[in-house]
Structure formats: structure tokens, C-alpha cells
């Protein structure tokens, strides 16, 4: 609590200092952050905001930086109409050069037209729906995180390789969950697995005992869940309640510390998750990020997509350092990003502005931590998934 107030005070003081043009020697460049800061998935939005904020702060501490950066954070509530408002607000403000935008796919897809209309370069940091970059292929829209296609390809191949055969798929009915269901089923069938039951659930559902009792009857090897942490926690804990001993396989949406916090280490043990990008814990930049994040003492963790927001903000600032604070130049420059180092691995944009992520990292919960599969005792064969 105290922490929060001091943060607020600090931010406020910073704002005042800015207004007093204390950085007269450096030109101030503003970039926007847009994500869900209120509502059901706000934990992810705030995690992303903090990560982008961290990137800006670190850059401002760097004496070599040519500009002084200021982050303008806007809330999109995970709703398309509010997102269009926020996008218009950022994109029509000429002092804002570029944006780190959107966690929810539906907001990302709703705003691409707005960004295009205003020639406002954005880098999407969380939304995973393929259409965001591929439908219109606007030059302004880029994305550092991967789409869900590769994620599910790897997940299906990996799991069938472990000789699991029967799946029950539970997905939320948002675009995120539905698309996961679609791609996972597609690849699973290709690799010889079988979906014996499929349940769509709403994102605010609390009770899953009816669906899970049915699932229990089907006796699957694996329960695949396409959705985000809050319902992931509920489903995993209600599985236990009903005595279902299947492996719990999630998507990138549950790879967060709050998943483990919400369940306790015992229940979370053995849950699987797949996420795009190099395992950032293993890269030097990743450790740097977690270290700095801890130092900055934010009161919410970075969550699964925090590192992507951090990378996106850094990518934009690097570009601005190189070509200057001009939207057009930033758009031109971003087109040529190839093999650029970042805390999430190399970033290369294809012609649609999509980061072509060759790598998918596999994680498993072991003793209350997300551990890279290859490093885990499960991977070495010391422990066995159920």
C-alpha cells in the first residue's frame, strides 16, 4: 500500500519535473502503451504496462540515449469500442510517435484500421490472433509475440510424441480460446491424437463441475485448456475436486506466476504450457529484465506477456534513436527489422510485420515454478506426468 502511494507520488513528481522541462537538453519523445488496465484480465494489462514502463525508465537512465522518453498509458478495457477510442486518442496526438498496443486479440484487430489511417506505427505485445497482422498486412502494424499457430503445432507434436492419445478440449468462447481450439485440434489430428470431448465455456464462468464430470466419464489422458489464467486456475482446481487425474495442458495464456499462486504449488505441479519465443530466462537480457523488474518494486508481476511488452517498447525506442522521432521513418525502419536481439530472442518481421518466431518454449510447473521442460526433472525422466 505504502509502496503504491510512493509510486504515485514518484510518478506525479516525475510529471511535474517534466512539465518544468528539467530535461531541456534532451528532446522528449512520447510513446503510447495500450492494454487492459481495468476488468477481468487487468493483471496481464498492468503487467505489460509495468514492463513497458520499466523499459522507458531504463532508457531514460541511459546517458547515451538521444531522447528523453515518456510513456502514455491508456486503458482499452479489452473492449473493441473503447480500444478504438484509445487508439484514436494516441494516434491522433502528433506528439506520440509510436505505440506498444493491446493484449486482447479483439481489441488489436478492431484498431488496425485506425492505426493505418493515421500512419501510426504500433508493435502488438500480447494479442495472438493471426489475423491481427495477416488480414490487412498494414505496414504500420507489427507484432513481437508469435501467433497461436506455431504454438499449437509444437504442443500437439510434443504431446503426441509422449504417447498421449485421448484429449478433452476445454476452451473459452473468446477469440483467444476458440482459435486455440481450432489450431490445436487441427494439429492434433495431424499427429494422430484424438479429441474425445470439447467444451466451450464463457470467460466469466465460475463453476465447471458439470463439464468436468462429463469429461471424467470420457476418461481422457490429457485435458487441454485454451484460455487465460483465471479460468485455468478454476478448472485445474475443480479437476482435483472431482478426482480427475489427467495431465493438464494449457496454452501461453496460463504461463503466469499468478497461475501457480492461485493454485498453490501442489496443485499446479505438472501443468504444461507452451509459449512463443526463446526461453527468456535463458537469455542474458531475460535475467536482466527480471532483475530490474524486481528492483523497480511494482506491485503486480510482469505476467506471461510482460517481457514482450518490454521488448516491444525497446524495439520502438531503438528505432526512434536510429531514425529520429518521425512516424513515417519509424514505419519504414520497422519493415527492415531482421535478427534483432531482444530479451525474447531474435526479432525478425516478415512482410506482414509479424515476428517470425522459430522457437516455441515448453514449460512445466515443478515445485511451484514454471521450469523449461528440457531443464525439468520431468524432461530428464526423473519425475513423471500423471
Amino acid at each position, binding site marked *: *500500500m505504502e509502496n503504491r502511494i510512493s509510486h504515485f507520488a514518484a510518478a506525479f513528481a516525475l510529471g511535474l519535473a517534466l512539465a518544468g522541462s528539467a530535461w531541456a537538453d534532451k528532446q522528449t519523445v512520447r510513446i503510447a502503451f495500450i492494454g487492459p488496465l481495468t476488468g477481468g484480465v487487468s*493483471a496481464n494489462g498492468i503487467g505489460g504496462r509495468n514492463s513497458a514502463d520499466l523499459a522507458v525508465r531504463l532508457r531514460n537512465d541511459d546517458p547515451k540515449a538521444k531522447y528523453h522518453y515518456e510513456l502514455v498509458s491508456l486503458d482499452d478495457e479489452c473492449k473493441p469500442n473503447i480500444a478504438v477510442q484509445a487508439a484514436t486518442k494516441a494516434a491522433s496526438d502528433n506528439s506520440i510517435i509510436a505505440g506498444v498496443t493491446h493484449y486482447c486479440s479483439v481489441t488489436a484487430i478492431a484498431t488496425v484500421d485506425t492505426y493505418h489511417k493515421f500512419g501510426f506505427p504500433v508493435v502488438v505485445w500480447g494479442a495472438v490472433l493471426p489475423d491481427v497482422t495477416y488480414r490487412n498486412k498494414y505496414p504500420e502494424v507489427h507484432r513481437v509475440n508469435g501467433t497461436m499457430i506455431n504454438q499449437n503445432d509444437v504442443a500437439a507434436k510434443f504431446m503426441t510424441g509422449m504417447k498421449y492419445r485421448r484429449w478433452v478440449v476445454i476452451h473459452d468462447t473468446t477469440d483467444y480460446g476458440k482459435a486455440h481450439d481450432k489450431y490445436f485440434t487441427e494439429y492434433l489430428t495431424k499427429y494422430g491424437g484424438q479429441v474425445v470431448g470439447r467444451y466451450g465455456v464463457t470467460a*466469466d464462468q465460475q463453476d465447471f463441475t458439470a463439464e468436468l464430470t*462429463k469429461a471424467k466419464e470420457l476418461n481422457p489422458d490429457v485435458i487441454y485448456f485454451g484460455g487465460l489464467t483465471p479460468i485455468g486456475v478454476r478448472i485445474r482446481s475443480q479437476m482435483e475436486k472431482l478426482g480427475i487425474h489427467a495431465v493438464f495442458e494449457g496454452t501461453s495464456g496460463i504461463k503466469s506466476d499468478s497461475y501457480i499462486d492461485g*493454485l498453490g504449488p501442489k496443485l499446479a505441479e505438472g501443468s504444461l504450457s507452451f509459449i512463443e519465443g526463446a526461453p527468456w530466462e535463458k537469455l542474458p537480457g531475460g535475467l536482466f529484465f527480471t532483475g530490474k523488474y524486481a528492483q523497480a518494486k511494482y506491485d503486480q508481476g510482469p505476467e506471461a506477456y510482460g517481457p514482450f511488452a518490454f521488448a516491444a517498447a525497446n524495439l520502438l525506442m531503438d528505432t526512434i534513436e536510429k531514425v529520429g522521432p518521425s512516424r513515417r521513418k519509424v514505419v519504414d525502419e520497422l519493415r527492415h527489422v531482421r535478427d534483432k536481439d531482444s530479451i525474447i530472442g531474435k526479432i525478425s518481421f516478415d512482410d506482414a510485420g509479424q515476428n517470425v518466431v522459430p522457437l516455441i518454449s515448453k514449460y512445466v510447473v515443478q515445485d511451484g515454478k514454471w521450469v523449461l521442460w528440457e531443464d525439468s526433472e520431468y524432461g530428464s525422466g526423473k519425475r513423471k506426468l500423471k
Partner: protein
Amino acid sequence: MNIGLFGQYVANGLMLGVIYAMVAVGFTLFFGVLDVIKFSHGDVLTVGAFAGLATYIGLTALGFTSPWAQLFVVILVATAAMAVLGALIARYLVLPLRTSPPLNTLLLTLMLGSALRECVRLFYPQGANPKPFPRLLPQDSLALGSFSLRLDNALLLLGGLAAIAGVHLLISRTRLGLAIRAVAQDGETARIMGIDFERVVLLTFALGSALAALAGVMNGLYYNEINFSIGLLLGVIGFSAAVVGGLGNIYGAILGGFLFAALQTIGAVALPAAFPQLPSAYKDVFAFAAVIAFMAWRPTGLIAERSAERV
């Protein structure tokens, strides 16, 4: 479907029904005394559950670890705190709006609900994320074929039924209950009979809110997880159950609660069996359509308000 699984569905449905019924009873009590809908009721439940969780964490930190004693203190603190909160809400937010259109009370409590929810999200440490709720009840389970009866679930079910029965006794057998019923029937006349109107209203709100807190703690014990938005859906369902049952009638609220639980379970189980090609997500469409059809059939709920309108 074998009998064990059927039993499992019934057990799940009953548990849901008890929680819904407890929330619905609150709505119906408030409506009874003041003719208002208090939309923040679900969020009071959330705050109650979080108060219980905080108490548990505090107790554990103090080295106080006997589960039964912990359970007792958790429930005591949660219900007492919410009773006070409920009375405060009634005194400072609901009563002042008595003379304005009832819809304005609805708007105000709606906003209060979001304020409470946002407070939990922002000011409870890491409040935006789901929180594990401790298992304070014995976990033994009795397996009968594919049906597993867990002792904690059975206890929760009994506890919930006992709480509802207790409220019923309070309303029908005590002097306070008599006063509540009198105010519900006719506030003006009750006043003339020397009943302190405001006090009865405050006590009713305290009672309903304490019940919500209990439901919140039970919800936590049952799912072993709580989050800041549990109250949102429980509030809507509780309101619906109270209305479907017939506003102002306790039995109606209880019936409505169980009806909703049954509807939900049937929707998730029977619908895909009947229409295999229909995606299971249609179950909610089915449930809401059923509610609309039901209201057209019984326009004043299962148990209609007893006193007929005098024309």
C-alpha cells in the same frame, strides 16, 4: 449414464444451488423491506470472501493453525464485517435515496458494486489475480463407484442448508423477524405500531450481507479459489433466482436458487447429448431463453407475492 455419475451431477448441482439460494435470500430480504434491488450484493459477497481469506492469512501468521478454530474465526470475522458493511451501505447510501425513483437506488448500488470490486482488485495485494482459498475442512472422501462423496462438500452443503434454515427461523419465529415481516408488508403501518423502521432496515441489510459473506466463504471453501469478480456473476444469478422465485418470498428465493443450479447443470449435460452438433457454449443461450420463457409463463415468479394488489 451410470447411477454414480448421476449422483455426481446431483451433488454438484445441490452445492451450486445452496450458494445461489443464499445470495437470492439476501436480494429477497432487501426487496421485502425497502422494495429496492441492491445490485452490489454480489460484490459484498466478494469482499466477504476476501475478508475471510485475509483473516486466515492473519491467523496463520500469528501461528494459530487448528483448522476448526481457524474456520470459526474466519466465518465470524467475515460475517461480522459484512454485516457492518451492509448496515453502513443501507444507512448512508440506500436510505437517503428512499424518496427518489427506485431505479436510482439500483444505479447507485450498481456503482457501489463496481467500486467494491475495483477496491478488491486494486487494494488487496495482487488482487487482480485469482487467490487460493485454504482447505479448512477435512478432505476425506467416500468413493461409491464413479461417484465420490467428499466430506468437505457434504459439510458445506449441510452448513449452507443450516444457514438458510436459521434465517428462516429468525424471520418466522423471533420478534425481530416479526418486525421485518411487518415492515415488508407495510412500512407505514409498522411505524405506527411502534416499530423502528430504520433500525429494522439496517438489521435486515446486516443479516442479508452476513449471509452473503457466509456464501462467499463457502464458495471459497468449495472451489478453493476466489477472485475479485466472483460476485459479479453470483450477483446476477442471485438476483435472477430471487425474481424467478418471486421477490420478497424466502422460499421462492431458495427454490429459485436450486432451479438455476439445475438449469445450469442440465444445460451443460443434457444439451450436448440431445444436440451433438451444437457447440456446448450454447448452453448459456439455452439457460437465458428458458428464463425468459419461464417469466412469460409465471409473470410474478414461482411463489407470487402473497398480498394481492388492491385496486
